[in-house]
């Protein structure tokens, strides 16, 4: 019998429906794999009882002849940014240590309603601020991948959804939720050889997702392939009156709509993404991606997104500004940590609690955000950044006159070693150079594995689409997936 942990979402769903194996067997296989993978540090909390209960419920429903739910029998990992009722939810921070929500986030509730079970809460960069998982209060996630050079340098799984990417790549979860503010689904997916899609801003409810930068935060799935992402996204997306920016639109049948033929489609190649000092391997991968999409029937056109180079600095004003406002709620009064030295007053309690409870990167971003929003600087920084954001969105609108989707690399390099960039915040920020512009414009964007570098590490290609055209993004990603033939997987060392 095949190892059930080798199966993805679609095969598990279909196998359970057909009775090839039981949901219980699947849940037991994955909970055991999770329990045996401690060295990855991918999970902050393991919830085998949740996964097993959902599995038993799926098996009972099948025995009773009921119509199967869309994700019946499928266990998944849940990024710790999602509040889960009765299960600690910390955003990998000290300040929320011990916080056990009294409510369930909309996205996680939708997944449970669809029949999915939870294997546990996944580690991440603290408050989703980071690109390597090194900012987690509970220790970094270690990528399951190792360089093929014989060295055993532990590698970053990407971030912020690094627990999600590591768990899926290590096959201890067939799929996972992620969230993406400036690339936090796509960059970790690229680093670990899996797929991940950030849908259009507003597709997935933000209700119950611990807020980082509200105008950018968007949930999405991470899984082994494009079809699995489509299946999960259908269950996660949908209108929610509890989120003021939720889009009141029907959820398309993305899986049923998948079509890898790109006849009649135009694929734009943005020339500004050819950055200086881009590794030759990334450039070569990009060229292969162009050839694959042409082979799929698409016409390739060069386009220009002239404000691309200003996206990162605009992002590093807007995101910290929103974060400094969102994270003001952590004050030691209503939930989480309180640091109240003997004799301290209320103001001192706030300042001590926040000093104790936030990590260095979170503090850095709160301070930057506070600075750019402070009296006398607001217009020069924040208003200017929001104007540049308008220009970046306009660049994309003009590009859509010439093409249907854009193809770019996902990240400027393969996974780096843990510790390699930790001392230089700016070097870390630059890792998001290709993912941030589409985030600023709220566009759907996906990373799909394209190949490996000389060190045997995965490299990802990114597809960016028009607003609400997740189908076009998934289709182009599928066309790449079918031609890339990506079968590399990390050898088990954990």
């Amino acid at each position, binding site marked *: 019998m095949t190892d059930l942990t080798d199966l993805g979402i679609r095969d598990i769903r279909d196998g359970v429906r057909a009775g090839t194996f039981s949901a219980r067997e699947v849940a037991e296989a994955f909970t055991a794999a999770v329990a045996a993978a401690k060295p990855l540090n991918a999970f902050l909390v393991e919830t085998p009882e949740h996964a097993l209960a959902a599995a038993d419920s799926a098996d009972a429903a099948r025995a009773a002849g009921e119509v199967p739910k869309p994700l019946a029998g499928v266990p998944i990992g849940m990024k710790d940014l999602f509040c889960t009722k009765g299960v600690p939810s910390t955003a990998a921070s000290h300040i929320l240590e011990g916080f056990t929500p009294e409510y369930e986030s909309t996205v996680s509730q939708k997944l449970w309603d669809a029949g999915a079970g939870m294997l546990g809460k996944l580690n991440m960069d603290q408050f989703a601020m980071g690109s390597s998982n090194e900012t987690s209060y509970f220790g970094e996630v270690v990528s399951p991948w190792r360089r093929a050079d014989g060295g055993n340098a532990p590698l970053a799984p990407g971030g912020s959804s690094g627990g999600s990417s590591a768990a899926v790549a290590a096959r201890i979860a067939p799929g996972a939720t992620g969230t993406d503010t400036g690339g936090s689904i796509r960059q970790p997916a690229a680093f670990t050889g899996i797929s991940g899609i950030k849908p259009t801003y507003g597709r997935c409810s933000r209700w119950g997702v611990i807020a980082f930068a509200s105008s950018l935060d968007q949930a999405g799935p991470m899984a082994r392939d494009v079809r699995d992402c489509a299946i999960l996204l259908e269950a996660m997306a949908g209108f929610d009156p509890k989120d003021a*920016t939720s889009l009141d639109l029907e959820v398309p049948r993305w899986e049923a709509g998948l079509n890898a033929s790109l006849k009649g489609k135009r694929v734009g190649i943005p020339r500004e993404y050819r950055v200086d000092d881009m590794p030759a391997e990334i450039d070569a991968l990009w060229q292969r991606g162009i050839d694959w999409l042409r082979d799929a029937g698409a016409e390739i056109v060069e386009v220009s997104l002239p404000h691309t180079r200003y996206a990162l600095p605009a992002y590093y004003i807007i995101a910290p500004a929103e974060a400094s406002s969102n994270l003001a709620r952590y004050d030691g009064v209503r939930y*989480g940590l309180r640091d109240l030295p003997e004799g301290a007053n*209320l103001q001192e309690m706030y300042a001590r609690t926040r000093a104790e409870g936030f990590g260095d990167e979170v503090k850095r971003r709160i301070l930057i955000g506070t600075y750019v929003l*402070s009296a006398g600087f607001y217009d020069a920084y924040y208003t200017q950044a929001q104007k540049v954001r*308008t220009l970046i969105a306009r660049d994309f609108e003009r590009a859509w006159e010439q093409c249907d989707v854009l193809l770019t690399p996902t990240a400027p390099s393969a996974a780096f070693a843990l510790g390699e960039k930790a001392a230089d915040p700016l070097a870390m920020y630059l890792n998001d150079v290709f993912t941030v512009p589409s985030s600023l414009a709220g566009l759907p964007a996906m990373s799909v594995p394209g190949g490996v570098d000389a060190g045997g590490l995965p490299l990802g290609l990114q597809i960016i689409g028009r607003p609400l055209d997740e189908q076009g993004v998934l289709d182009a990603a599928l066309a790449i997936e079918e031609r890339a033939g990506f079968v590399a997987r990390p050898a088990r060392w954990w």
Partner: protein
Amino acid sequence: MSVDIATVRRIAGLARIAITEEEAERLSPELGNILDWIEQLGEVDTAGVEPMTAVIANRLRLRDDVVTDGGIRESVLANAPQAEHGFFTVPKVIE
């Protein structure tokens, strides 16, 4: 753009984050470097450009004016570091 130690202290005060002298000294060049880098936005001509307010056009909805929540005091207080008599408690602010 240099961020001197007094500015670091002022910003940290506004953000309600206690910082030590060593942290202020470390943060001063660190924040300065980041701000130097984002200064380049100043070179973009944004004359006549409206600041972004919503990436995806959406209208604000109004819901029916009915009570949809409430009566969950115990849940609201469940995660409080300190709660007494059905209230959050904090150090005394009025002598």
